């Protein structure tokens, strides 16, 4: 322990590493370029261990273990860049980011027609294969659920029952960043950019598709008819003119159906027994058009969501209100990130790496005195709450859940963590079908205070935190191990004195349980600083 101390303290001296990552450099150029007083107003970098906590939560969904913190503290060289690379290739990266994409796109809906495990496996395998996100989205909107090997990817549509209005709304919100729902019955009353024809042009890709209960497969799958047009009237139009709309993305031209003779319409004509498969599928066209005409919108939405995920707020806020009258908080940054997504060919890791290596991401969350709106202008990092997943898994990892499972294979450990974290995550999650939003509730604090599963995290189990603290040689060692585990930092003199005092008061296991509880319930644990 004593031999560990020297390098740890030395490592706490903060320092930003210069980076050559093009995405990171473009981010910082956009931010400093937008503010003439940037050099004077921007906070310095956060210290190394704070960076490790931040980036571990963002890339692998949990706080670092004490061993990881100590290794990072004593590492030399370009340690921040090395840490980012290590985390991007960590076995937990794909495991965690599959959950992030799931919460983005399924918004915690319960499984209906497709088992969640198949969908999660699909997302994880896609991440393992570094599948570009535009292709991932294209596959999702093109899936039909027939091939058992590709069943998982059909969950987006099948668990929304292939209901055209709902699917249209969610594709527009979640993939294009534009909530067109209020433009269903009329042009959006307040948003000039959201036209009724946009909603119906998007729905025209989808309205021929339907949920088909396949009697042979004994499963719900997606069929499609070869006819059926989207028509609409505006409820504001006194003349009630009926308009027709062929498929087309917002702002792009319509895609006319090819002329086909009646006999040539179907590969298999729809009936009670048979799933309809047209020769010309409007729905399959959507997957192509999103990658084509929709590329820019897809990229902007991905850039905005990733920025929100890693910094706490979208450049365009709310995330599904991208339109000309809702400018980004920094337009040049929004443009730069969007073109980075396109030049990175929708590679998720390239974008995450770029953001994590930027100075903006690495800044301290303490603003300089007298600087107003520092977070809004990216002059200081935003203090942001852990997501339900980050909180659930961090509670486990910080209290030594992983340590107590030493030797378990990554997949087995992930499964155990998921099982143990489930209750915490659902207690923190918003209602199904809603985007994540931090809304602390009394009920959550009662759970934290009194639930037996929280109590069990505080009790000693071979290798876990309580176990190690009980074995620590003195109060100072307890304080160090405790603060590294909980907050990924070393305690200061006052904090050490408080720990020593607490240990004198009660019997040791009780004092240790109460200390762990006090820190895990504190704001420093609940937020990313």
């Amino acid at each position, binding site marked *: 322990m004593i031999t560990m101390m020297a390098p740890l303290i030395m490592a706490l001296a903060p320092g930003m590493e210069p980076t050559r990552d093009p995405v990171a450099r473009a981010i910082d150029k956009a931010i400093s370029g937008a503010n003439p007083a940037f050099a004077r107003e921007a906070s310095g970098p956060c210290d190394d261990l704070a960076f490790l906590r931040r980036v571990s939560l963002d890339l692998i969904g949990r706080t670092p273990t004490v061993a990881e913190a100590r290794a990072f503290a004593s590492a030399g060289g370009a340690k921040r860049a090395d840490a980012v690379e290590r985390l991007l290739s960590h076995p937990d990266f794909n495991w965690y980011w599959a959950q992030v994409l799931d919460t983005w796109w399924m918004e915690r809906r319960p499984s209906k027609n497709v088992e969640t495990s198949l969908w999660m496996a699909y997302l994880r395998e896609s991440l393992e294969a570094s599948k570009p996100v535009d292709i991932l989205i294209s596959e999702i909107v093109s899936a039909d659920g027939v091939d058992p090997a590709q069943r998982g990817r059909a969950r987006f549509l099948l668990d929304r029952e292939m209901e055209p209005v709902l699917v249209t709304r969610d594709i527009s919100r979640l993939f294009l960043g534009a909530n067109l729902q209020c433009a269903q019955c009329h042009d959006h009353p307040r948003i000039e950019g959201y036209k009724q024809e946009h909603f119906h042009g998007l729905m025209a890709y989808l309205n021929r598709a339907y949920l088909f209960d396949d009697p042979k497969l004994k499963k719900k799958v997606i069929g499609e008819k070869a006819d059926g047009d989207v028509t609409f009237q505006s409820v504001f139009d006194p003349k009630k003119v009926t308009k027709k709309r062929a498929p087309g993305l917002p702002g792009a031209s319509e895609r006319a159906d090819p002329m086909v003779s009646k006999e040539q319409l179907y590969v298999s004509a729809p009936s009670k027994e048979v799933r309809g498969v047209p020769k010309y599928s409007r729905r399959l066209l959507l997957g192509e058009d999103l990658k084509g005409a929709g590329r820019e919108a897809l990229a902007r939405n991905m850039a905005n969501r990733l920025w929100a995920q890693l910094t706490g707020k979208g450049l365009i806020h709310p995330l599904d209100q991208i339109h000309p009258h809702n400018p980004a908080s920094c337009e040049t940054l929004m443009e730069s990130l969007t073109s980075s997504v396109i030049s990175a060919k929708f590679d998720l890791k390239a974008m995450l790496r770029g953001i994590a290596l930027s100075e903006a991401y690495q800044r301290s969350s303490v603003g300089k005195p007298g600087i107003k709106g520092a977070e809004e202008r990216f002059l200081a990092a935003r203090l942001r709450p852990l997501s339900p997943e980050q909180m659930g898994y961090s509670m486990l990892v910080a209290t030594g859940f992983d340590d107590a499972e030493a030797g378990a294979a990554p997949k087995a450990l992930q499964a155990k963590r998921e099982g143990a974290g489930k209750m915490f995550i659902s207690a923190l999650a918003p209602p199904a079908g809603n985007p994540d939003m931090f*809304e602390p509730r009394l009920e959550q604090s009662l759970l934290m205070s009194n639930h037996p599963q929280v109590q069990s995290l505080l009790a000693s189990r071979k290798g876990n935190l309580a176990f190690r603290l009980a074995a620590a040689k003195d109060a100072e060692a307890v304080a160090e191990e405790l603060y590294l585990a909980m907050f990924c930092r070393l305690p200061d003199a006052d904090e050490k004195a408080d720990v020593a005092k607490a240990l004198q008061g009660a019997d040791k296991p009780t004092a240790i349980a109460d200390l762990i509880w006090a820190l895990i319930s504190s704001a420093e644990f609940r*937020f990313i600083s």
Partner: protein
Amino acid sequence: MGVVRLCGSPEHAMSRRAVLGALGAGAFTGGALANPLAMQNKRVLMIFLAGGVSQLETWDPKPGAPTGGPFRAIPTSVPGTHVCELLPCTAGQIHRLALVRGINTAEDDHGKGSYIMHTGRRQEPSVNYPHLGSLVAKMVAAPENPLPGYLHVEPGGSGGSSSADAAFLGPKFGSVSISDGKPPANIDLPGTLTSGRDDMRHAMRRKADSRFLASRNTAETEAYTQTHEQARQMIAKKKLFDTANEPGKLGDSYGRHDFGRHCLLARRLLEGGAPFVKVTHTNYDTHHENFDFHIERMGEFDRTFATLIEDLHQRGMLSSTLVLVVSEFGRTPNINRNYGRDHWSKAWSIALGGQGVVGGAVVGKTNATGTAVVDRQVNAGHLFATYFRALGLDPAKKHYIDQRPIPMTDPAGSAIGEILA
């Protein structure tokens, strides 16, 4: 002897004095009376009749009119004031209530109407306004208040608390849901944990928080630390949920149904120091069979509400508790072909009483068929200014969001002086 009838209604051939006597001797003496010192604080009880209660079947009956429906009007404890015969018990409490019969909120949508009646404002794209409960939580509740500032007792289990109700006041003034009148889950400290130890671990948590937040306090961190304090308040006050501790007769009078239990709980919560309690009674959205539904719903509401008012009075709490009976709107005078009444916001009524309100007052008037306000028309802005005045607060007091001043109530609406004590 059967259940003590708490109705003061003339329909029950019992004078108000006799009723009070009966109450004094019976139902209300069983429980320990609350500490009178604790009663000096002002508080608010809001009863929300969700779905839109019919003003014609409650506070503004029009018997004999083509729009009047089948029910009679009955006299009340205030000579000359009549209410619908579905309120025989409440009729005996009218001298403690003021009726506002000239409300025009001009909004027939459930969500928007509810927003208006909870915030006193129409929805605006640029700013979200806080609920009355959140305003009270912030402006009336003492910082050391023993319970969360805005409690909502509601039927069903899915409601959940909502910090969004507090809008710009900050999430810590949001509503805390008491679903189905039950204490929240996990209210009991683990068996091994003494309350002294719990105090100690919270003291350590607070110390950690004050260190961390010294340089980084935000609305979100404040809301988070506040939920721990609220949880502790609930744990300390969990006995309030034992409505079974109330005398059996009083429990009978409140009614052995959800609304009865919820109102009894509301009184206990107010007595236990809650500054604002909302109780929701559903569902009044009677597009079909309006009259049958109101017989059934008012059958629950009437006796429970009259008991509640009497109980508050007996405990000396009524004069310091502003009681509101509101809805998102009223119902159409026109009776549709399904014997229903539809949404109607042009001419409807509410009742209020207690803290700062003149009992027995009636203000505002609708025409003979109830289709329009003919005298003293008011909207939710006036109502909110009235609530504020009744509580001794300045309706024009401003809250600042980014230096932009926002008056606490809509400046276009002045208080209804006629009903203010």
